[in-house]
């Protein structure tokens, strides 16, 4: 690998000015709300904020005592693993084939990028319409083939539904990065391998896949964050966390308690917990997974 390039600024203030816009954006859109959440997690107040009471760790203690909250950690783990795993692998396959397509590649690529323009709630509704037990086209077909599809009462079906919607929604994003990654691999490497007699399968696993590892790692981090934070709209539109609480992932409960039930203290405490989990996960990913990445 090439030696690391370092640029040294002579001026003492220029670097600060250059990073200022980024710092401002992060402060306004992350540190300020995160600080607010932290503050509110130690408070209990009525929705309108007319009476605010400091309660210390009570919101956290209440969460700890709530069995259903603890159970939703398991649900979230399953959901996130499925969304990140399926999302990354399916888009890799699609990107690989889109990269090999000679004719009409723009057409295929445009189609692949489309879902990204769809809002999460709309994605949830679209999939709900396809799979709703009463009116869904797909569920009708499934029932015709003798498969009793019922996402309203069968938790596996419900989980499958939200995972499909969440994966589909993120597919384009992953696809774009993989496609860019594949295109940046020098053709000469692949051609050389082909001349040496390596088939497409071998070329993929020994050349393209390892060279894609920075992209894959980046997407792993992004997809985990996506599954943890950005999927409440899909869950709300498709299953409302049901049946029971079987698709109620952590972020959905944050959303529900905060925006539907107006229980701001508990919602803030939950988002603090969620934040800690995601920070921890990201640290783990950078410490252990990143070691396997070749830049």
């Amino acid at each position: 690998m090439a030696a690391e390039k370092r640029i040294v600024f002579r001026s003492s203030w220029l670097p600060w000015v250059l990073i200022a816009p980024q710092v401002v954006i992060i402060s306004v859109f992350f540190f300020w709300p995160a600080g607010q959440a932290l503050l509110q997690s130690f408070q209990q107040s009525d929705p309108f904020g007319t009476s605010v009471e400091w309660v210390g760790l009570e919101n956290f203690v209440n969460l700890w005592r709530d069995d259903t909250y603890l159970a939703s950690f398991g649900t979230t783990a399953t959901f996130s693993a499925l969304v990140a795993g399926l999302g990354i692998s399916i888009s890799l396959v699609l990107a690989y084939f889109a990269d090999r397509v000679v004719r009409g590649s723009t057409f295929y690529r445009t189609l692949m990028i489309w879902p990204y323009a769809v809002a999460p709630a709309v994605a949830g509704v679209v999939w709900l319409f396809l799979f709703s037990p009463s009116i869904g086209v797909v569920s009708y077909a499934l029932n015709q083939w003798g498969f009793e599809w019922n996402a309203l009462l069968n938790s596996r079906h419900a989980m499958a539904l939200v995972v499909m919607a969440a994966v589909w929604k993120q597919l384009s994003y992953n696809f774009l990065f993989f496609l860019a990654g594949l295109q940046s691999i020098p053709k000469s490497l692949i051609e050389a391998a082909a001349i040496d007699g390596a088939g497409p399968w071998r070329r993929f696993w020994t050349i393209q896949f390892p060279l894609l590892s920075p992209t894959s790692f980046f997407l792993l981090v992004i997809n985990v964050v996506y599954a943890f934070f950005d999927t409440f709209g899909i869950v709300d539109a498709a299953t409302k966390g049901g049946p029971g609480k079987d698709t109620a992932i952590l972020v959905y409960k944050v959303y529900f308690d905060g925006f539907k039930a107006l229980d701001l203290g508990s919602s803030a405490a939950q988002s603090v917990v969620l934040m800690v989990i995601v920070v921890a996960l990201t640290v783990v990913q950078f410490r252990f997974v990143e070691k396997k990445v070749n830049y």
Partner: protein
Amino acid sequence: MKLRLTLSALALGLTSLAAQAQTEIQWWHSMTAVNGEWVNDLAKNFNASQKDYKVVPVFKGSYDESMTAAVAAFRAGNAPHILQVFEVGTATMMASKGVVVPVGKVMQDAGFKFDPSAYVPAVAGYYTAPNGQMLSFPFNSSTTVFYYNKDAFKAAGIDASAPPTTWPEVALAAAKLKASGHKCPLTIAWQGWTQLESFSTWHNTELATQGNGMRGTNARLVANSPLHVRHIENLGNMAKQGLFVYKGRMNVPEASFVSGECAMITTSSGFYGNVAKNAKFAYGLSTLPYYPDVAGAPQNTVIGGASLWVMSGKKPAEYKGVATFFNYLSNAEVQSASHKRTGYLPITMAAFKLTEQSGFYKQNPGTDTAVNQMIRKTTEKSRGIRLGNYVQIRTIEDEELEQVWAGKKTAKEALDSIIKRGNELLERFEKANKG
């Protein structure tokens, strides 16, 4: 000709002058489809009836969304004048001090005679504070009723003019419907509201202590009585046999009745407008089923729907406008027309009598079901249900009942769990609103 032109120009000028002097009243609501048209018509007719005020109805999303929007607006200092809040939010609105102005006060300050006893007791009582002050204006009050598809009944060989009134009869009818090839004999909308809350008052049994929370915030859920367990167990068994088919939370199942897929449904009386407009079959309305062997049943069903709250911090002239609008809404003729149009309850006794005299109930059999279920003398156990953190409790009811329909939990386990989880929320609400 010239004269007429001048006159009309003058008239035009006058109206535009009047328009400038009008005080605008913002009204946030959550009514969709046919009910949304109704709200717009009410505002339009009121605006046409006088010149001083202009009511502007704004659709702000579903009930919980408009409440969240109002919370944000209030914190930012630009709340609407009138906010429509569902009954589930009543305890929250009551507990938030300084956020609202009691409707009784708004009316009195504006010089309107305001007599709470003119209102249907079960409706007015629900929105009245323990000290007798009426806090919000009952707007679209509904209750739980039973709809059935007469064509499906005939096809199954059931007498369509005598709908089942008890749960054993419902089970029997469902079995016949199923035998005749019907895939969804019975479905249930608003499961927590219809099968636990209204079910309790209908059988004069407490859902929660302290008169279902009407007497104070120290109420606790007691919905695991033998009667509750028996009913949920029955429904669970019906689900297993395919007699009751679960179609989702809130009012989602209503679509499957209108489409003809499900033959019977328990849901809100406010569903009437939709059925009357969209159902392509003969339908009937009847009272919520009950268990005939329970002493005191049927009592009265519980109120649902929403009321109008007046937000604080507005100008006196604007409050006067709000009062004038509410006075217009209380008018017996306006009330009666709304009741006939939507299926929501008439909120004054005068409106009910007017509707009766007009012969509407005779022409549309069953439309008086909701009223008859509500105008009975209420008891301490049936006056209403007012719980803190109610939105979350409703969701807990949904979650636990789904476990029964899926066969994962017994009725007793689910109800015990509702009580345990619900009471934790009630304890927290009590603590948060002590001051």
